[in-house]
């Protein structure tokens, strides 16, 4: 049976690769340090596969049909999408997929009444490309990308994300293979991409949210970090924290916050978190 060996979360803002040098030196140093630490801890966990959860920025589906979740089931993932490579200042990368596990998620999800759309050829924006650049730079660890709708109304609720995370954990632990699975959430923290507060970060919200993660009380976090609260901290972007809340369901105990930066230059509250305790 598969095992969860790692649970982490980080911001995926395009500025982390596209215009990294525009942030103050202190923030750059802090981000580099935390990203290096995450990569080392990920590698030390020796995962056979990363299951990554991220907002789909209206890239893989048109606005008339935005599935809540989409699984990339292809044997290989190639990114960034053409439209994004110049913006992210990243060369094309290739990462092996894990079609066996990915297709299992789609089919077992259906049996458990979870609708996962799937794509054989998924396109990748900052949500996958930025974290893979820093954490899986050689593409050595196979990837199952799962994109989420965090930005097209109706945006799902935190309760729903946590519930899906709980079911996904049960599904992964029931997977008939010996895989060591790393779970990775990307997105957030506060930001409002393309909205009137495009250049703003809500530092107070971000620190409050990270404190809730440090406390490790899942019920309190899911109850208090409402969708309305996230929207108030930055509309259409902060709700990417739904990926973090989904990942919370794989963890136990307090999170360790490696870094936090209210990075206006990267247009996003920027954080890196690992959970020392996972649920198996």
């Amino acid at each position: 049976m598969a095992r969860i060996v790692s649970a982490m979360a980080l911001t995926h803002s395009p500025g982390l690769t596209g215009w990294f040098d525009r942030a103050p030196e202190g923030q750059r140093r802090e981000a580099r340090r935390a990203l290096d630490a995450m990569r080392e801890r990920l590698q030390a966990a020796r995962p056979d596969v990363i299951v990554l959860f991220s907002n789909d920025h209206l890239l893989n589906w048109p606005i008339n049909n935005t599935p809540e979740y989409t699984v990339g089931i292809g044997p290989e993932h190639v990114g960034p999408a053409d439209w994004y490579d110049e913006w992210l200042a990243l060369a094309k990368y290739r990462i092996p997929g894990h079609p066996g596990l990915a297709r299992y998620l789609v089919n077992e999800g259906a049996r458990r009444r979870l609708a996962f759309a799937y794509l054989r050829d998924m396109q990748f924006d900052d949500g996958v490309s930025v974290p893979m650049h820093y954490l899986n730079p050689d593409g050595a660890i196979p990837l199952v990308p799962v994109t989420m709708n965090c930005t097209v109304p109706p945006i799902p609720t935190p309760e729903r994300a946590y519930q899906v995370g709980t079911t996904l954990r049960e599904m992964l632990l029931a997977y008939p293979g010996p895989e060591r699975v790393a779970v990775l959430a990307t997105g957030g923290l506060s930001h409002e991409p393309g909205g009137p507060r495009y250049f703003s970060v809500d530092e107070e919200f971000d620190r409050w949210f990270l404190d809730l993660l440090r406390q490790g009380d899942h019920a309190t976090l899911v109850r208090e970090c409402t969708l309305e609260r996230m929207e108030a901290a930055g509309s259409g972007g902060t709700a990417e924290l739904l990926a973090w809340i989904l990942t919370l369901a794989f963890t136990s105990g307090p999170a360790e916050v490696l870094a936090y930066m209210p990075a206006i230059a990267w247009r996003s509250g920027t954080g890196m978190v690992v959970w020392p305790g996972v649920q198996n």
Partner: protein
Amino acid sequence: MGNVERCDKTLPVNEMIYYVRRDAVLRERWNRDLEGLARQFGLSREEYEAVRDKDVRRLNDMGVHQYYIPQILRLFYGAAANSNSHPALEAYKRAYPEEAAAAERAQERLARGKG
């Protein structure tokens, strides 16, 4: 709820941007024949003019998904080095001067202090 709730999911321009971003031929046509492209995707005259004028506030008010608005600007100005001083983002500062000024002050405080 927040600004993203203003989105009109049925607005033709919201469909058009999805296809233009994914297609190099359409991206090239954006700068050569925007009006023809807008006609092809069924944009109203009002939608077309707001896109043509790069009018951030009008686009937002009519229901263009907020994530697509900077993408529209990048189609005009290019995507490289998209920092807060990029020409594509100057349009935001003109559209929302108070919000932009508040963010600039916060950035300066950061740079002076703990940043």
